[in-house]
């Protein structure tokens, strides 16, 4: 499913150049990258929900989901939190700097199953990044889908990135935007409290919807309970999972989740595939 591209294999990476850099929030930045090999850039295709391995020279690789529009051919976008050794180094890169890229990897969102349905997106923190390309995808083909419900939760109000976009999406017809911050701030126009408190406000037809979740596992469990309780069929509920990934091709073993290699068999799973193990802490 969604296997529309030929991934650049397990290694070595391809050289890529930073075309643009945006500081999204104090700790979050976006890098727009272009593969140095023009032919590789021209043939590069990905599906929303897939990820790349980004390599920082002399330090190592990290898996980063692709946030750009899949129709965009000139650049490949990644929104990253400066957190560890590699991502803090990536944060220091400026336009013109070079890094390594291999991908795309994994199974993306079930775009084919969305046709004619309401689309419900539930994300927490930077979980919005792997899902934003789905929003672009739907907005570009608006007539093919029912209602679009975008639910995003953050810890602190200043953690919310793409604030103008949420404002813009909220004004579109048949589009509902529900944003919550556990801790608000001055002029915060959205809900203050847990994002889970907003689920009841979401307007969609449960028997004719597809829901996709990405964020902390605890949040996704609560979201799943709420969506399923409203009558969403389990087969139409999806989540994107996060695990330690080093090889990205189902070989190094770190991302195993039960019998699945998250990098290869995921990161997107149907709720039914993941539900049983998500109930066990430490699995």
């Amino acid at each position: 499913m969604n296997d529309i591209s030929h991934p650049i294999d397990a290694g070595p990476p391809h050289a890529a150049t930073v075309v643009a850099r945006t500081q999204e929030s104090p700790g979050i930045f976006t890098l727009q990258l272009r593969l140095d090999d023009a032919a590789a850039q021209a043939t590069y295709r990905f599906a929303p929900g897939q990820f790349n391995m980004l390599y920082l020279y002399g330090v190592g690789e990290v898996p980063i989901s692709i946030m750009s529009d899949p129709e965009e051919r000139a650049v490949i976008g990644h929104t990253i939190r400066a957190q560890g050794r590699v991502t803090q180094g990536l944060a220091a890169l400026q336009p013109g700097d070079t890094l390594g890229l291999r991908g795309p990897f994994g199974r993306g969102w079930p775009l084919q199953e969305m046709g004619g349905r309401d689309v419900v997106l539930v994300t927490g923190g930077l979980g919005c990044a792997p899902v934003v390309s789905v929003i672009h995808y739907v907005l570009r083909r608006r007539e093919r889908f029912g209602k679009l419900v975008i639910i995003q939760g953050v810890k602190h109000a200043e953690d919310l990135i793409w604030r103008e976009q949420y404002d813009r999406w909220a004004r579109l017809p048949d589009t509902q935007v529900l944003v919550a911050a556990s801790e608000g701030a001055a002029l915060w126009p959205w809900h203050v409290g847990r994002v889970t408190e907003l689920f009841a406000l979401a307007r969609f037809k449960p028997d004719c919807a597809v829901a996709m979740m990405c964020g902390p596992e605890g949040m996704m469990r609560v979201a799943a309970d709420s969506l399923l309780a409203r009558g969403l069929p389990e087969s139409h509920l999806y989540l994107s999972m996060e695990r330690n990934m080093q090889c990205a091709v189902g070989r190094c073993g770190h991302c195993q989740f039960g019998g699945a290699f998250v990098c290869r068999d995921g990161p997107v799973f149907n709720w039914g595939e993941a539900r049983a193990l998500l109930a066990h802490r430490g699995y």
Partner: protein
Amino acid sequence: MSSLPDHAEFLPLAQLPSLVSRLMALGYQCLGPAVENGAIVMRELATPDSLPRGLQAEQAPGRYRLTQDPHNRYFAWANGPQAIKPQAFAPQESLWRVERDAAGDLKFAAVLPAVRPQAIIGVRACDLAALALQDAHFLRAGRRDPHYAQRREQLFLVAVQCAEPAATCFCASTGDGPTPTAGYDIALAELSDGFTAVAGSAKGEAVLKDLKLSPATPQQIEAARQQGCASAAAQTRSLLARNLRDTLMSRLEHPRWDEVAARCLACGNCTAVCPTCFCHAEVDEPALNGASSEHGRFWDSCFGETHGHLHGFNVRPDIRSRYRQWLTHKLATWHDQFGRSGCVGCGRCIAWCPVGIDLTEEVAVLTASEAQP
């Protein structure tokens, strides 16, 4: 399993060096048993007649001691901490290399190992079964690991029937031994005056042909068969032969996980000696002059603190969840990945565990019918 083909050659005891010598003449680097730090390891044989005799390894939970075989046989030892795995899946190797020029541009290049043909003499049925599983993982269709493939293709495997199982062995219960049935180039069974020898590949057949051996007598073939049966019967440990997947996965909150976690040191010895464990970490090693960096991999363990590391938190922060991950992967979810259990009954994880945790005992408790989930 104790089946042996109806036909076999007979390699007289005095001619064992001629087998090694033939392999050396064919260009193989020959590895065989050697004693190092009180254990049997596979090391390069200096000469065709340098295979040691009379070694035995007494094994028990948390215990491995070399002893003297009263019959002075070549292969009376059950196994050592490692056999084939390091030869195909290198403990540490480079995957690719990157150079950075003055302008900051990066040039990437794959690094493939230079390997010479290698023959391993004395591998056991459990290790052949484990190698088949490593093959299934690293040579998966469409995703062949070129580093593993390069080493693997150079291997020539001389297997030996295990006649003297250790107390930690349970390959008979997993269906993987003690008599090699597949995956070898040549399989030997050691009798008092020599070896029955069977070829398992065209390469093996050519080598046996070069040795101009006589056919083994029906009595010799029968003696080898009976020796395999006796060896299987002598095994004192066992693992339930049925698929344990559903049972174990329904007991993920069993109190035994806490109990075993209190004993487990999370040292990772079991994963280091396990012939099927395939986890590896990737690491970058930049050159001191800053002009290049080498990206490699090394064996990793799901007992390590970094195995489940994610930005800001650890998926498996405690030993309970790590032991559970290891055991349920090996015996339960391995079925989903490879269509069988990941345990071949070699017993190494039992012998080399510093606190003597016995996998067969843990499984017996976890799967006991009266146990509550």
